[in-house]
């Protein structure tokens, strides 16, 4: 289908997976992902849905560059990532990718502000003061600026998830990925996460890829990819992004 799309009319492709296969050998060898091929465009809000155990998380961790044990190729931002060294991939993640996990993983000993600042300090693009300023900006975006100096372990689940989003956004990543980011949240907090994703996709042209079980959440995005038993069974309608 990509042959039919001309780059002048469509937003540029920001991620493409080609013939991705993955096997688990433990306890017995079986194929979790089967010939996964798809593209995602800049500024697209993409949801991946499917039954539990169909391989969504596995796919997302491959896209996140953390899992390098697969067949096929992954390209992001025009760069082929398959086969690169762990260090190079870490640097790529740091600059271009942001993650939100289902269980809002924050560093418990650090303050909210420090949690948000760390990836930016690692990137080293801005001086410390500037990083702090930007971290406050991101916290404002998720309405957590008042809690900046609190220990992150003291926050509620919803609050932690919002901080995790601020952290994912701190380096203005090209792509934000989420593995059931609202899986543990109530309706109100889920709505808030959705609104933030929607806003950054529209305003900044950042790409969102989330695995979700929430039909409303998926329906609100630009496109839904449906998986079953390790394969993509529906690529969704592609002309929702203009």
């Amino acid at each position: 289908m990509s042959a039919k799309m001309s780059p002048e009319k469509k937003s540029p492709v920001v991620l493409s997976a080609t013939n991705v296969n993955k096997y688990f050998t433990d306890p017995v060898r079986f194929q979790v992902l089967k010939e996964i091929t798809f593209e995602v465009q800049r500024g697209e809000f993409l949801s991946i849905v499917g039954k539990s155990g169909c391989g969504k998380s596995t796919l997302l961790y491959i896209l996140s560059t953390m899992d390098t044990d697969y067949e096929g190729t992954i390209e992001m931002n025009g760069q082929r990532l398959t086969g690169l060294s762990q260090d190079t991939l870490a640097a790529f993640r740091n600059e271009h990718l942001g993650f939100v996990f289902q269980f809002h993983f924050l560093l418990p000993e650090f303050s909210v502000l420090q949690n948000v600042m760390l990836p930016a300090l690692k990137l080293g693009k801005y001086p410390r003061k500037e990083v702090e300023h930007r971290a406050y900006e991101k916290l404002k975006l998720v309405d957590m600026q008042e809690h900046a100096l609190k220990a992150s372990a003291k926050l509620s689940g919803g609050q932690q998830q919002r901080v995790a989003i601020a952290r994912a956004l701190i380096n203005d990543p090209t792509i934000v990925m989420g593995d059931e980011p609202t899986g543990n949240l109530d309706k109100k907090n889920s709505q808030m996460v959705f609104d933030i994703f929607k806003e950054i996709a529209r305003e900044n042209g950042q790409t969102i890829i989330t695995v979700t079980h929430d039909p409303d959440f998926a329906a609100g995005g630009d496109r839904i990819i449906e998986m079953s038993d390790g394969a993509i069974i529906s690529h969704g309608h592609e002309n929702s992004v203009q």
Partner: protein
Amino acid sequence: MDLKIAYTIAQTHLLSKKKQTLVAMLGVTFGIAMFIVMISFMQGVNQFLEDSALDASPHVRIYKQLTSDRPSLIETLRPDGFNVIHHQKPKQELAKIKNGLVIARHIEAQPQVLGVSPQVSTQVFFNVGSVPIPGTLAGVDVLREEKLYRLSQRMKSGNIEDLRANANGVILGRLLARKLNLKVGDKVNVTSSTGGTALLRVVGVFSFGIQTVDDARGYVNMPKVQELIQKDANYITDLHIKMKDPLQAIDFGKQLARQYDYKVEDWAAANQAILAGEQIRGVMTFVVSFTLLVVAGFGIYNIMNMNVINKMKDIAILKATGFNGRDVVAVFLIQSMIIGLLGAILGVTIGFSLSYLLSVTPFDSGDFLAIDTFPVKFDVGYYLLGVAFGVITTVLAGYFPSKKAAKIDPVAVLRG
């Protein structure tokens, strides 16, 4: 830049578990403190013994060795004959060093020599009432002996000048004087092994702080001994030599042995017991310190390992957000280095305090050694070594857990 973040993270981790950090630190502290105390004390003992031995004995001594270890007359004449010789006796010969005074002058002219003191030494009996007490009389030139052994500083009573002034004077070792119940001004009768007798006046009492010397030796003027054993004024039995640098003694001794046909003995050979003791103490210090540090190292290794296991989730998050393996290694290695450095600094402080306390603790060695507190050597080198040991041990102990941390697969952790 990266190290700065790693340091911040390491610091936060350490501070969030103060008790664990403290326990790990105290392991190092204890090891280093013990190391400092051990090495300072052992080296103090070594130095003290070496100093007193070096002080009281010549660096090189030349004397004539009277032995029966010589080829027999028959063997010299008929080397191929079937000769059976039993129990050969020493030849009747004098313990004299021929031209001793000339040799002394010659050696003294060498630039590396501090001084030479020719001596006539003989075994005598001091007669106290009817009891003969054995001892050694050393006939010396007091001024030369002073130059070699700083005799005047070792006087407990009396004055070395009085020996020069009094031809019949004698300066006795402290323990010998006590045994003979003699004080300055008293007279004592001596008998030589050849039967000569002399009446000597005690003009002083000295102490080298070494039992074997203080218990047996008496200094008299050289002519008095020569007279006592009925020998002429050229009769010299010993040449005592002090070098400017004691370490040169061994080479210089070898050179003299080649030059003169006499027995030449350097201080190392004369004090082998002390040097052997030094070696034993050195090995002991090393073994004990090493053991303590290894134990401290294992303590840190365990704590860091647990730390890494407890922090798996944090490590996964750091990696997910773009920190690489080296950053993770740095985070944990810096933690062990901080533990090691603080532990070592505290260790040398405590080590110094304990060493100091030891050095002022009274210690009664009886008459064996002239010492009133424990000998402790203070050397900056030991403290630097302690800190270096501490840091190296903790870096080694922290390295493997850090490597393990760097290998953690974030996916496995984040999936739960």
